[in-house]
């Protein structure tokens, strides 16, 4: 069997997730040994239109991005969204909370009307094309990335947690932020990161996106138990989980 051809692409993002792949260091060699990397702008100059697996980082923010993503989709057998920008829109979606013209003026000033800056509402990849697998996080977790790639190479469905961050947080013996009457997004955000943020004394900011079935109906009553409100909770959702 010939090695699957893999191409890595990026859209609106900081390229931090690709950096996580680069940071795999010696294991990069194993990765490159197991697959045939045919296009990866951050690491090589070649380009290719022939690939089996497309790994796509970043959000869709311009009409031409949408078009380019559709072409990638049509060529790839498997399309993987890499990182929060791609899986949920992530921080790029914060702008969707404001008037677009105002955002443009604020960010680009007098260049706001330049054609290549014609930004529109931010979308995650799955809001534009079908996505086969999502590797969550801002940035992604290198261990999870490796496991997903190896599972795909084996023809196995990758195991991506459907349970919330609390599972991993509790396993680390953290005291829950709620016990101090503080908000944490852990109960509704997908695990897989190992809960680094609550373990460091922060809250979960929600970078891995919502679990498949978040219990949103519980929010009001549960927040009241801690003298918090749903608005407090919503405010914390803006950073990574804006609409």
């Amino acid at each position, binding site marked *: 069997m010939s090695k699957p051809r893999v191409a890595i692409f990026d859209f609106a993002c900081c390229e931090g997730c690709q950096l996580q792949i680069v940071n795999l260091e010696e294991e990069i060699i194993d*990765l490159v040994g197991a697959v045939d990397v045919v296009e990866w702008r951050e690491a090589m100059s070649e380009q290719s239109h022939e690939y089996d697996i497309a790994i796509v980082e970043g959000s869709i923010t311009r009409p031409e991005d949408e078009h380019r993503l559709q072409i990638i989709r049509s060529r790839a057998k498997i399309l993987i969204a890499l990182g929060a920008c791609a899986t949920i829109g992530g921080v790029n979606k914060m702008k969707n909370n404001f008037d677009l013209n105002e955002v443009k003026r604020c960010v680009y000033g007098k260049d706001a009307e330049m054609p290549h800056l014609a930004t529109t509402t931010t979308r995650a990849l799955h809001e534009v094309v079908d996505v086969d697998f999502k590797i969550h996080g801002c940035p992604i977790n290198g261990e999870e990335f490796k496991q997903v790639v190896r599972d795909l190479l084996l023809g196995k469905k990758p195991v991506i947690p459907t*349970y919330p961050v609390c599972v991993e947080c*509790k*396993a680390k*013996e*953290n*005291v829950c932020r709620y016990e101090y009457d503080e908000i944490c997004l852990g109960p509704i955000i997908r695990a897989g990161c190992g809960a680094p943020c609550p373990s460091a004394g922060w809250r979960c900011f929600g970078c891995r996106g919502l679990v498949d079935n978040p*219990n949103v109906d519980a929010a009001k009553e549960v927040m009241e138990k801690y003298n918090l409100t749903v608005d407090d909770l919503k405010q914390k959702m803006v950073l990574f989980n804006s609409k």
Partner: protein
Amino acid sequence: MSVNTISKDRFKQFVEALIQSDQRVVGVQARGDRFVFDDLKAADALRLDYDVTILSPRKYVLPPKEPLLKFDGRASYESLQESEPMVLLGVHPYDMAAINQMDLLFSQDEYDNHYMCRRKKMTIIACDVATPSENVFAASMGTATVDSGYDMLLTDIGDAYVVEAATDNGKALMNLMPDARPASEADIEKRQAVWKKNEHDLNKHMLECKPSFLPKLLEKNYDHPVWEEKARLCYSCGSCNQVCPTCYCFDVQDEVNWDLKTGVRYRAWDGCLLQDFATVAGDHNFRKDRAARFRHRLYRKGKYVPGKIGGQIACVGCGRCITACTAKIANPVDVYNQLMERTDIG
């Protein structure tokens, strides 16, 4: 069985000697404003006055993630055993009761080699509760004190500990306590007083029936509205499973290396409250509703597991799930009492 007394100062020397020995020593220590079991580096760090630990000692008896075997394609495999001699220092009676139940469960039906090997290399020094935690209800469950399973039992009687060596391992440890003297009658009475006090004090939530009624109570209430009422707020976060000393469900997964042939099969804690706990091949989930999963945990504790271990209730009243549940719905006593209110248990 031999019962001795040792002053707290001398006891500290014993702990130092234990740490210097060639066994791994795990003991209860402070972490922030709470307590945890962790490797003990100095006798001063040991906190036998603790109220409750965040996770139970289950994390040593059944580690959160444990390699089971190495494989090489489908061709061959080799069992992996990672256990080492270990002393577990400061196990409260309710947690001891939980370990006793696990020992039964892992040695019956499919004898679990990984578990039992580790368990056999473990020496347990239990200690009676000196400070009740805010949610403990062990007295309601008959686990405020314990009389088996440990190698050694310590009871704080003020300026000294009463030390009971119950097994050969325990008696061997007495060699590290040259200053212990046979407990006086007064010391034994003080120990009785601690037990009596704990039978009363470790009851922050009072179960309104004998634990032995629970299987019957549950049997009659499979469709009770309380399941839905409570589970409405459930996040399916499994915190109640994670912290529980009697939860023993695990999931088995393979981690394969880059050669796509060799790898390791391991097991990791699972939890029956998690959405996909009951998802099987073909993506069928036979416990899709939150309420069904919420009910399952309490049935497990109060009916299913007792059916396997001679009627012992698989909730030992540590109260950890009550503290850990963000939605504040996990309290087993609260649920069982609500069922009592509306049931004639005859």
